[in-house]
Structures are given as C-alpha cells and as structure tokens.
C-alpha cells in the first residue's frame, strides 16, 4: 500500500515537472512571436511619419527634389513589399534614403530651426532606434527559445511536442553589412 502511494506521488511530481517545462517552452516561443510583431509595429509607424516629414521639408528644400523623391519611392516600395527578404531590403533602402535626407537638411539653417522639423526628426530617429531595438529583442528572445529547444531537459519535451528552432533576424542588404570604406588619399 505504502509502495503504491510513493509510486503515485513520484508520478504526480514528474507530471507537474513536465507541465512546467512545457509551459516554459510555450512562454519562450510566444516571446519570440511577440517580438516579431513588434518589428512590424515600428516599421508601420515609420511609414506613417514620412508624409508629415516631407510636407514640412518641402517648403525649405526646393532644390532637393531628387532626395525627396527617393524617400517617397523607397516608402512606397517598403509598403508594397511582400515576404521577409523583400521587406528587409526595401526597409533598408528607406533607412538609407532618410539618412541622406537628414544629411542634406544639415545645410538648411532655417529648416534646422523649425520646431516641427526638429520634433519629426526626433520621432523618426527614435522610430529608427525602435526598429533596431525590436530586432535586437527578437534575436534575444530567439536565442532564449533556441537554447531551450536544444538543451537538456527541455529538448526532450521540445522533441515530443514538435517545438522547432526559430531563425535569427539578419540583415538582408549587403551594403549594410559592409564595413564603411575610409580613404585618406585624394
């Protein structure tokens, strides 16, 4: 009788332990999914901010039509892009176009004194940061999750219930990966 009770207790403890492990895996996987959706939220926010920026800048930067058009085109391309690879590439282009817009704005003192422009610049810079941080958070969450999928004892549960490793976010655009070339000779 006593042996039977001990047996039942051991089984119960084991079951609770397995449930605990399963739940940590689910929690880690949900963190990965949530982090991924955060990236989309921030990308969307950037798309929404750009028309305002262009509207503010237009009056000051009359001679920079090409720069402004590049931003508009990159935005349209980014909104219409489908699939992870294409989206990554288009968003990279948009980052680049915005970078050159802000660089050109440096030579317009009136524009730099405009409160509206400064506010938008802060918003866009922060959004840029938030995109980067949400990608970083996605990678952190993915690393946590993948560690759990691979390591003892959670890997056993992961194998039983078909938890698959997630992929890390990596930059799709080759130019962003390159180390900037600095040349001192004329």
């Amino acid at each position: 009788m006593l042996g039977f009770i001990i047996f039942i207790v051991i089984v119960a403890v084991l079951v609770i332990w397995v449930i605990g492990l399963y739940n940590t895996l689910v929690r880690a996987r949900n963190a990965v999914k949530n982090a991924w959706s955060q990236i989309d939220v921030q990308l969307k926010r950037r798309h929404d901010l750009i028309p305002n920026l262009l509207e503010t800048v237009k009056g000051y930067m009359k001679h920079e039509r090409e720069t402004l058009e590049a931003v508009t085109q990159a935005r349209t391309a980014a909104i219409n892009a489908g699939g992870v690879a294409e989206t990554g590439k288009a968003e990279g282009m948009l980052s680049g176009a915005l970078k050159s817009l802000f660089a050109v704005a440096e030579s317009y003192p009136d524009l730099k004194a405009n409160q509206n422009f400064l506010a938008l610049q802060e918003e866009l810079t922060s959004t840029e940061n938030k995109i980067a941080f949400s990608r970083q958070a996605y990678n952190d969450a993915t690393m946590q999750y993948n560690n759990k999928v691979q390591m003892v004892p959670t890997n056993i549960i992961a194998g039983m219930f078909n938890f698959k490793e997630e992929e890390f976010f990596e930059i799709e655009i080759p130019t962003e990966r390159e180390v900037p070339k600095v040349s001192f000779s004329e």
Partner: protein
Amino acid sequence: MWELIRANRRKSVFLVVIMAALLFVVGYAAGELLIGQGGGVIGLFFAFAVWIIMTLVAYFQGRQIFMTVSGAQKIKKEDHPQLWNVVEEMVIASQLPKIPDIYIIDDPAPNAFAAGRNPANAAVAVTTGLLNRLKRDELQGVIAHEIGHVKNRDILFMTMIGVMLGAIVLITDIAVRSMFYGGHRRRSRTASSGGSQFELIILVAGIVLMILAPLLAHLIYLAASRKREYLADASSAQFTRFPEGLALALEKIAHTPIKMKKINRVTAPMYTVNPLQKASAKAAGLFSTHPPIGERVKILRSMAGGSTYMAYNEAFQQITGSRSSIVPQSALISPESRPAGTAPPGPVPGLRQMEGAALLAAAVPEPATQAGKVRQTTDALWKARNYRFIHCDCGAVLKVPPDFKRREFKCLRCKKVHSA
C-alpha cells in the same frame, strides 16, 4: 531573461526568510525583556503586526510615497518627447509588457530612480539636472539601468527587505528606549525575586541581540542592494548593446559637485548613484548601498566580449577579483556551453552591429546649444504643471498658468493682445 528573474526570485526569498527570522527573534526577545517571562509571544505578535502594516503600506503606497517625497512630477509624451522616446526604446529592448510612468524631478543634481511593485505598476523618475547634462546615448544607458531594476524585480524586493529592516530598527529602538527609561521597575522586581542565573543570561543575550540585530539586518540589506546595482548595470549593457553610454553617464554624475535637494536616507538607495555616498570612494564599504562608481565604470569599459550578461560577468570578476557571479549561472548560456552536436547560433547581432551606427550618431537631434537643452527640460516642467504655451508673433513664448482667469493678456515683449 526568465532564468535571471527566476534565479533572482529564489535568492530574494532566501534573504527575505532570513530577515523575517531575525525580525521575529527580535520581537520575541523584546517581549521577554520588556514584559517579563512569557512576554515573548506578545512581542512576537507585535513584531508581526508592525511588519504586516508596514509591508501593506509599502506595497500599495510605496511608489506614491517615493514620488511625493522626492517632489517628482508625472509627464506626458508631449512634455518631453526625447525622454519619453528613450524610455520607450528601452521598454522594447527589454521586452517589458508596458511603458512605465515617467516623472521629472526639478533638481540640478543629475540622478534617476525607478519605483513600483511590478513591471505593470512601475515608474521611472529622472532629475532635470540629468536631462540637461547627458547626451541621448548616455541618457539611454541610465534609463536602461532603471528599466533593468524594473525587469529584475529589484524594486519590490528592496522595498520588502527595506521594510523589514525598518521594522527591526523600530522594535529594537522601542525596546532599548523603554529599558533605559523604565528599566528600574523591572530590575528591582528581578532583584526582589532573587533573580535566577538563567534569567540574567537571557537578559544579557537579549540586550546583545538588540544591539546586533539592526546592524546585521542593515548589512544584509546593503549587500543585496550592491549586488542588484551591478546586475542593473549588466542589464543596461545588454539592452543598449553600448556599455560606454552608461559609463560616460556615471562619470558625469560622479563629477557633478551639486547635492540633491530633497533627499534622505530612505530614498537615497533607490537612485542610480547614491546621492549621499561620496563619489570618490575607492572601495565598496560594508555600509554603502552602491558599489563605487569608479569600479562600475571600469567594469563597463572592460567588457571585451560584447555586451551580454556573460561579458559583464567576466569583466566583473576580472576587475573586482571576486569569484562570485553577479549573474546566476543559469542565465549565462554561451554558445560554447551548448551540448555537442548542435549548431551554434552565431553571434546575436545587437543594435550597433545591425544598423549603421553612423546613422544613429549623425541623425540624433541634439539641441545645438546647452541653453537649448536646458530650455527643453524646463519647458517639460512647465508643461507637466499644465501651463499653456502661447507663441507670440514677436518670437516670445508666453507660459500661461492653468489657473489664469483673465480672458485677454498682453505679450510681455511686444504688448500684442492675445485671447485665451
């Protein structure tokens, strides 16, 4: 991250149990000493009641008390967009469920603290001095440190253990005082009843305990506090992927000779840098709430292996010569320590590695002058107090108090009449 929080919780529970045991022993001894034999149980109940009441107040009102005592003012996004954005960025990086409430303290000394019992109820407060002095990168480091406190559940833990410390100090204080003033009655009674050897030993042991217990409780509290500061620094590096930001900020804070205005021994341990502790201190004394700034900066600067918890831990052990781990082992999973035969995931790219760092450095809009930055901060305070801003054509900005009743008023510079 989960491992970190959970390992933290285990350690916290252990320390809380020790403190609780100390509290009850003190309560029992105080009862025996003051009321006489058999009074220990009453003392025990008294200690328990004091503890429960203080804990409930701290749990539900702690944040409000802290904010009121330090004169902090809650802001909205429009009041100081940059501060708000920096907090939001760190919330994203740390994967907190919700953005904490943000407060500004009108004080020229640069500092910051976090409060609130859990991430859903958290608040971050920064001084105007901090906003005026730090660049965006540095501010980000400080905010990440505070978010680290929130994420690691440090605030709840330090409040709980601080409350117990307070209760122990209170009870021993009452006991010692009443023994000092009302002791004659008891002593004469003991003398008349002959005073057994045993009772005398109890009396002496009790008095020694009354003196030592608060000291011991204080040491536990401080050791826990220092460890949490290192951990929050490690979190800051992990979230920003840029340890140098916090290092620069700490140096600036340490080298500012201004003292904080509204500060006392209760609120001081909550700040990024303890405002009552000498910045020049070289070693972490047993009686300091924070590790010395110089050492914190040195650890952040020597994080050679990237900006992960592991890199911080290595740097910590190297600088302090300590063998203990600042971060629990279970959270220190490196690609090398994974089981053989599984594919290494490769380095996890952080912000700096992923985006062109040049973009961030160049496009961050810093107000051109120090004056511009100060104006941005003071404007935030006006806005937080619900002043209305009216831009006059002459370029002046009129700040109208919320309780201003007149319908019309003149611009102070050009005398143009504005209507409310």
